[in-house]
């Protein structure tokens, strides 16, 4: 793992974290934790193996740890005071916000799989290996996540779907 290889992965880690958490600052914190842990756990990295997959699995583990931690009650600061321009063009802001907030409405484990497929174009088997879940579970999370996202974007209430 040399610096340039690692540097090249950071934008993708940030993009995925942003989509997963829906919050810029929290996403970059997660990326920072991921990189720090990667340096500390170098010994677990197989030389010559897929650096990206390894980094994503570290990020996944950290994120799962975060979800398990009890949430402290916090007071939201008024976002207007700290507005950061996130995109050069704001024309499609409404649509963007809609999809972003729709993604946030998905259950965490469904959002994760939908994003790994749609954003990272990771194969189903790679996701199964990375998350340590059977291929069938990957498919059911993907299937439910996509359908729910579609219904939310259509303005419908996602219904509970009876499977078989």
């Amino acid at each position, binding site marked *: *793992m*040399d*610096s*340039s290889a*690692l*540097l090249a992965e*950071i*934008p*993708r880690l*940030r*993009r995925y974290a*942003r*989509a997963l958490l829906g919050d810029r600052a929290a996403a*970059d914190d997660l*990326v*920072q934790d991921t*990189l*720090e842990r990667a*340096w*500390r*756990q*170098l*010994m*677990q*990295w*197989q*030389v*010559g*193996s897929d650096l990206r997959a390894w980094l994503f699995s570290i990020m*996944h*583990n950290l994120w*799962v740890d975060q979800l*398990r931690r009890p949430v402290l009650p916090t007071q939201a600061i008024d976002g207007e005071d700290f507005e950061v321009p*996130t*995109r*050069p063009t704001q024309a499609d802001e409404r*649509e963007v916000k809609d*999809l*972003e907030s729709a*993604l946030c409405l998905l259950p965490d*484990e469904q959002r994760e799989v*939908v*994003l790994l*497929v*749609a*954003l990272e*174009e990771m*194969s*189903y088997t790679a996701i199964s290996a990375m*998350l*340590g*879940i059977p291929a069938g579970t990957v*498919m059911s999370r*993907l*299937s439910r996540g*996509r*359908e729910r*996202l*579609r219904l939310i*974007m259509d303005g419908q209430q996602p219904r509970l779907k009876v499977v078989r």
Partner: protein
Amino acid sequence: MSNHLISETDLHAYVDGALPAARYVELENYFSVQADDAERVRAYLVQNQAVKAVFRAVLDEPLPENLHALASPPARAMLARPFLARWSLQRSAAGFVIALLGGVAGWLAHGQDSPPESVARLTPLPRQAAVAHAVFSPDVRRPVEVDAEHEDQLVAWLSKRLGTPVHPPRLGELGYELIGGRLLPGNTGPVAQFMYHDGSGQRLTLYLSTENASNQESAFRFAREGKVNVFYWIDGKFGYALSASIDKDELARVAKVVYEQIERK
């Protein structure tokens, strides 16, 4: 038509371009008669594109400084954190056992969805050495923490941290000059790495650990991790590993010289 053979998985594989080429026609025939599924698949295709479009801009955002800095090996203080943490755990053995049991119990309780990060796994010497070599030897900006110009300081610092005198062997007769060295986290405590290079820029590292508890000795052993060749041996509490992406025979020649110099001390 074999509609009954089209599964939900097939529909998603179609969306994600993950079907064998021969099956696309079959699916498209299926969509011509199954309007609902066809519409759903179209919506998923749009969804994929929309998700990418929404977050594409993140890829072009300038990296915050803290993340940019983390692309390079972090400073000593940060790398030192895990083994200090582990060391203090070991000082209170009970605490360590409780933490370990807690980890295992937590894992069992949470089921299969999230494999735990391994708890205090011991990494074999040649692997540690090969990874350390692969990580630091290509680094142009900061391959070592203390360079050969300050060899006195390097020797004093590493000897102090490892709790035993350590000296970089002289490999000039083989064409390898010392670049410098660094301290790294091993399984349970600090380990040292010396780095050398020859006239062509080929780098070679000597990894030196003092954490071999079983106090046995071993003959020369050879291991290969990816492109890195490693010769290693154990001598009392010391473990030595010489790593480079060079021919096995040449590496053996260097290893023999290193071994002889260390034995003479």
